[in-house]
């Protein structure tokens, strides 16, 4: 029961990741693409934790933490580059 509900939740999150990647592909300006990349980073961080639950290995939660850190740094670096401050 709980595993079924959690599988549905993971499927909905993967669907959200795919829809955000549509905006990443066709966003008219660079800012739109970076906004979509930011949303995809957050969704992917949560999906790595979901993968940790499915595989039963707690090390993937640490992987998700490092991925969140790197994604945050990447989005801030892209934003500073667009602003002209990098």
């Amino acid at each position, binding site marked *: 029961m709980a595993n079924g509900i959690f599988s549905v939740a993971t499927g909905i*999150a993967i669907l*959200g990741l795919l829809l955000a990647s549509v905006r990443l592909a066709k966003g008219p300006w660079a800012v739109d693409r970076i906004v979509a990349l930011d949303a995809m980073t957050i969704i992917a961080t949560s999906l790595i934790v979901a993968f940790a639950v499915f595989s039963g290995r707690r090390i993937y939660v640490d992987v998700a933490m490092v991925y*969140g850190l790197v994604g945050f740094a990447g989005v801030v670096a892209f934003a500073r580059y667009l602003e002209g401050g990098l």
Partner: protein
Amino acid sequence: MAEILGACISLVGAVFFLLSAIGLLRMPDAFTRMQTGTKATTLGSILFLIGIGVMRPDYLGRTVLLAGFIALTNPVSSNALARAAHGFRKRLGARLEPDALAADEPIAASAPQEAEHGD
């Protein structure tokens, strides 16, 4: 029972992810896309991670830490993105009627020329 409760909390968070992605597709300009793409994913990831922590109590400490980390860093990246998008506001076609940043800062007023030069 706690497992089903945690899975339901995760399901609500995943629905917020889906709503955020639909908002990214349907919103008309970059600033409104930024609003759905950062606020809704922040709430969705907090609910998703807390739900996993309720479902598996041995994961709870790290997922709460990760949720707090996302809640702290996502507004910062959103703010940096909004300042970057403000430099392109003429080309983005967004309606910015009360524009306090353009009125306040001479740096922000000179940013579009630099950005167009850099392209």
